[in-house]
């Protein structure tokens, strides 16, 4: 494992941390010099570095096309980075795995299975030796947690958008992963439903002390949920040539941890944080790295 890692880091020349010897020290999740390109010479993003602590909630915010989803897919193991490495809990992430639960943008429930069976499918995959009753008990517990105890035997098509997304969240939590990856989970929901589920998610995350990496478009959502907010800039052409996208800034959230959606906008520090993010999104996110 270790020799393998050293060997691989030798090849990464552009990565600013490539010469730091024990790469996987400190930080529950370490992302180092990540780059992904689809056309040669014009990577969507490059040199993405960040770390996450255990139990930390990190939101990444940026315009469409900046590569947020690609970053998440690489963390999930569903996509492969052109350059760079991802370590979780001291081990390199290669390919998808059960220690990282994913909530997909379009909920990705299997429409031929009931709500209960959708979650049970994940639970069976995590603990293949469990009895049917054990699997069912575990699935129902997590579905009850997201308030779906009364809809267990319905098919996804019979659920509202918010309920479907709740099933997706229950499925991701049910496998008790070391880390949760959420790809804009509330994007398709109306504002009221979104507020409710955000509250529920926040509560569950705090109870389970889950480490969460989440993509969002919504500034208030990021401020409400995240301990730290990563601002991602789009790649752009500049007089010096192509400037790939990347993390422009990482903002720590100074608001108290017990904040709720209702009192969020009255908290001191909220306006500054919000203005800073909005200012970034409006003025600097597209400007080719002149930050």
């Amino acid at each position: 494992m270790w020799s393998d890692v050293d060997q691989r880091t030798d090849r990464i020349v552009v990565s600013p941390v490539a010469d730091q010897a024990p790469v996987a020290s400190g930080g529950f999740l370490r992302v180092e010099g990540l780059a992904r390109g689809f056309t040669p010479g014009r990577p969507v993003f490059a040199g993405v570095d960040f770390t996450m602590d255990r139990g930390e909630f990190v939101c990444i915010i940026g315009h469409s096309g900046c590569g947020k989803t690609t970053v998440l897919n690489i963390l999930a193991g569903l996509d492969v980075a052109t350059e760079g490495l991802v370590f979780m809990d001291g081990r390199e992430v290669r390919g998808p795995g059960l220690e990282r639960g994913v909530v997909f943008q379009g909920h990705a429930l299997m429409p031929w299975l009931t709500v209960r069976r959708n979650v049970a499918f994940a639970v069976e995959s995590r603990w293949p030796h469990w009895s049917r009753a054990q699997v069912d008990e575990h699935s129902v517990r997590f579905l009850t947690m997201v308030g779906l105890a009364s809809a267990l035997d319905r098919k996804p098509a019979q659920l509202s958008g918010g309920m479907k997304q709740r099933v997706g969240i229950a499925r991701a939590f049910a496998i008790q992963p070391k880390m949760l990856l959420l790809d804009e989970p509330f994007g398709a929901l109306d504002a009221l439903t979104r507020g409710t589920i955000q509250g529920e998610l926040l509560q569950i995350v705090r109870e389970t002390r889950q480490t969460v990496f989440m993509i969002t478009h919504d500034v208030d959502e990021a401020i409400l949920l995240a301990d730290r907010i990563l601002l991602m800039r789009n790649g752009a052409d500049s007089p010096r040539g192509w400037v790939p996208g990347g993390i422009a800034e990482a903002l720590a959230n100074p608001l108290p941890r017990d904040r709720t959606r209702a009192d969020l906008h009255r908290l001191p520090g909220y306006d500054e944080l919000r203005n800073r993010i909005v200012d970034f999104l409006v003025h600097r996110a597209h400007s080719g790295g002149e930050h």
Partner: protein
Amino acid sequence: MPASQNLRAALLSVLLLSVLLLTWQIATDLPSGEAGGAPAAMTPEQLEYAKLMGKDPGAQKPSGFPTPAQMAETVVKHLSDPFYDNGPNDKGIAIQLAHSLARVALGFLCACALAIPLGFAIGMSPLLYKALDPFIQVLKPISPLAWMPLALYTIKDSTASGVFVIFICSVWPMLINTAFGVASVRREWLNVAATLEVRPLRRAFRVILPAAAPTILTGMRISMGIAWLVIVAAEMLVGGTGIGYFVWNEWNNLSLTNVIFAIVVIGVVGMLLDLMFARLQRWVTYVE
């Protein structure tokens, strides 16, 4: 509202059937044209000459096409004893049908056994898809009966050749639909399976198969329809037993009532087979 519409549709169907039967009755009741009656202007010698030539103007010549009453008689006769067996050329309708259905079932099952696994492989591997596509495109449009001489020559058994023809015509729709269904399984379901570390075999049976099942069943339904069309023609060619042979045999006997009866039976059985697959299809279809 739909209930009353169904009722009206049923009434209309019954009405159409009555009109059809009535037309048939009137058409077959009429004595055929020139045999209407003896023309008055014929001398006894001329009459006798006409009789000698087989053109008796006085005789009522039957039209040859059966009347609905004769037809009903035949139907009752066949349905009252469908299982008799009086030797090679005289078997009850149920026995003939059983032979045809057995051939269709055997050929169809062989086709399923090949087409579904192969379709799975083709659907999952773009390489295999590209490699096999030219073969499929060339083999698909060949009339299944064109295989018959080759089958008879190599298999040397008429029944097995019939089964082979059913096999070859059922394979293509199932193969193509299975490959298409498997290839178009939503990426996100496969991603879910990947993040859950689902093993390939479990993924095939628990994710890809249910996701592609409606498309696969559509292919099976089309295949069954084609197989039932082809079996009649195939049995006319190979002879011996089966509903197709029955039609051909009764044509040689000039028994039109039996031919018409067989035609109706073929239609009804084909409809029942299709209904069966429609039911199966509804069972595996999911709403997204």
